[in-house]
């Protein structure tokens, strides 16, 4: 039983091992690059320089950090639940890497083509919350506990809009196979006809990745790192690795599903090199947007976050799924279907924006008193104030 790996016929097990090795090797390098990139980009957003001292332009900073983390003592609180505490990082780490199996980088460049690839990615991606709750519970720390419960609530809430947004695209593409979804986009990527699902997807991945404005579970100023507060060394770095790996994978997924993957606008017949560059550019744009949002937005509160998901995003995403389903069933001509979908989707997006505008009220006029109007109150504790 032999498989085909880059044109070589090799044994199935050797093939599997080779692909696994590729994942782990590639991911580690990519994550280090992402961390370096994030630090540099965020530094520029804040008029700083970012890492400069390790290697040329600080390029080796991530390597140095990784070495430090690996060499650090792995501390476990005495009162922690040993099994739960020690196993939690794996429960976060492994599902993220499992997601990688179905993600296509370019035509025929994926670990495995799965017919239900989208479904598989979604199913696997939601497992890691178990690890978060384990970390929070096992640490025997109240901040960790609070953070873990917040993470669970948030992950459950935002899993649904994420699923709905991807399902609506799957309905349009008539397939859950990621390669098929990319191919079905043809001349115009899905973001044009389906802006609302793209918006939902972007918001949901921010929440899935626990990034501002949805970094409630790990909020530094509230729960001091949440479930990770007791972790150190190699175990903490596994959480970190998983976080950035998830960012990379979800950005690739978004690039494939919404931005036309490797095909648009050059078409599939272009060479592998161009395909990889296109995918990287699109995923990079998404990642840049995530960083940009991160430096700009304050953090939402947990009840606002839940309300936004359950009361706004979810109902509207149902409407989108319904519209896409109707189009699928009645099969109007292609251009009419597209315009119909774009209209529904655009209207939904506008509705979301309208709700966001009106849920917080108008900005108050700036309070200013005229120069001489303000005189001394008759007494510091005047009756007028009562």
């Amino acid at each position, binding site marked *: 039983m032999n498989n085909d790996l880059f044109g070589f016929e090799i044994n199935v097990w050797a093939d599997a091992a080779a692909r696994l090795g590729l994942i782990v090797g590639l991911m580690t390098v990519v994550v280090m690059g992402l961390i370096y990139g994030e630090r540099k980009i965020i530094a520029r957003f804040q008029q700083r320089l970012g890492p400069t001292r390790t290697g040329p332009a600080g390029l080796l900073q991530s390597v140095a950090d990784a070495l430090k983390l690996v060499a650090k003592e792995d501390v476990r609180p005495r009162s922690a639940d040993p099994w739960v505490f020690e196993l939690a990082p794996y429960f976060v780490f492994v599902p993220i890497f499992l997601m990688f199996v179905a993600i296509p980088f370019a035509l025929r460049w994926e670990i495995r083509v799965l017919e239900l690839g989208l479904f598989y990615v979604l199913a696997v991606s939601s497992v890691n919350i178990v690890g978060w709750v384990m970390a929070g519970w096992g640490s025997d720390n109240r901040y960790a506990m609070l953070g873990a419960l917040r993470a669970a609530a948030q992950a459950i809430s935002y899993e649904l809009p994420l699923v709905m947004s991807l399902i609506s695209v799957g309905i349009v593409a008539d397939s859950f196979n990621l390669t098929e979804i990319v191919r079905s986009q043809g001349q115009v990527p899905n973001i044009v006809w389906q802006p609302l699902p793209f918006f939902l997807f972007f918001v949901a991945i921010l929440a899935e990745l626990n990034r501002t404005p949805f970094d409630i579970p790990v909020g530094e100023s509230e729960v001091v790192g949440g479930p990770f507060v007791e972790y150190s060394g190699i175990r903490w770095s596994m959480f970190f690795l998983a976080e950035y790996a998830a960012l990379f994978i979800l950005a690739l997924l978004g690039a494939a599903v919404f931005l036309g993957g490797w095909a648009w606008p050059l078409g599939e017949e272009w060479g592998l090199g161009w395909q990889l560059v296109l995918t990287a550019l699109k995923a990079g744009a998404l990642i840049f947007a995530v960083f940009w949002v991160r430096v700009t937005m304050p953090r939402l509160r947990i009840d606002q976050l839940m309300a936004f998901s359950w009361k706004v995003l979810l109902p509207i995403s149902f409407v989108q799924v319904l519209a896409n389903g109707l189009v699928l069933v009645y099969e109007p001509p292609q251009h009419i279907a597209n315009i119909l979908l774009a209209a529904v989707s655009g209207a939904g997006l506008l509705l979301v924006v309208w709700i966001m505008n009106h849920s917080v009220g108008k900005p108050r006029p700036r309070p200013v008193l005229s120069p001489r*109007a303000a005189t001394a109150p008759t007494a510091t504790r005047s009756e007028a104030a009562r």
Partner: protein
Amino acid sequence: MTTVPFPHEHEFETQDLMINMGPQHPSTHGVFRMVLQVDGEVVRDVVPYIGYMHRGGEKLAETMDFRQGIGWMDRTEYLAQHNAELSYVMAVEALAELEVPERAQWIRMILCELNRLSSHFMFTGAFGTDAGIFGTAFVYSFREREVILDLFEEISGDRLMYAYFRPGGLAWDVPDNFARRVAEVLKSTRQGIKDMDGLLTENEIFRARTVDIGKISAADAIDWGCTGPVLRASGVPLDLRRTEPYLYYDQLDFDIITGTNGDVYDRFVVRVEEMRQSVRIIEQCMERLRPGPILPDRLPRMLRTPPGEVYLRTEAPRGEYGIYMVSRGGNRPHRLKIRSSCFANLQALRDMTIGSYVADAVVILGSLDIVLCEVDR
């Protein structure tokens, strides 16, 4: 102990979680500790603990003569050092009946307002971090604060502990390029205020986090003894610069900023607008600054005051900063008491916080803009 009624209390017995926030916590602004009693995410009680930073500054200042004490005032209020020094030296001047030359007064006003700017920049930065921005507000603020501190260093020689005011005037004159440097600083400060304003004030998420959070009515604020922006955000136009003018504030044209709602958002906006007013004040002061002496003609080598007592208060960035000083004659105060604005403002924390969310507790504490050194002294 005040408790908030919880709908399921009778159906399902739950146990409240006690969370110990601080003294080592990123958002307690120093070594403040509060124990939150939370029901899920809802805060049902707060017990604040202060005193981790107590160094006996008041008592130490009693062992020092009037010049040595100035250095201690810097250390009680490490974000508005000039304002703290001003209260102290004005109290000494009131006791010793010293006449301060005009130029020294104008320079004092300019430095105090610049210090108000730097202190409010510190607030906006730290508050942005409390609200959850990843460092951006903090870095923007510190960029501007750095420019102001550079100017302070050129004038007084130190970046943080200036020890520049003296009973009777100033330690030494400002450098020759003072006017040009202040103009440069104000230019960058205006840009900084604009950046801060654009980054936060209209941001929907920021408004969702701050509007109607931590409300305190004018009457409650007065009862708790709140002063400064916390009081003005509740709608009470009490600003000592206007109501009890000291220095030459009565000659200048500036607005007192008051809020309407007394919530966290108002406290933020009041401070941002106050920064604009401070810029206005400094510009007017620069027009009126004339060459002249900076110390009285006859100043004794060792300043001694007649017996007496004085309470002198000024408007520091965080509110009323008062010095109560008793002298029994001699070169040092017999008793010194600092009326700390942060200490009074902090008392209102419990009232504001109960019933809100854990995340709100952080934002409310941030909006009070406490300096723990001033609270504990």
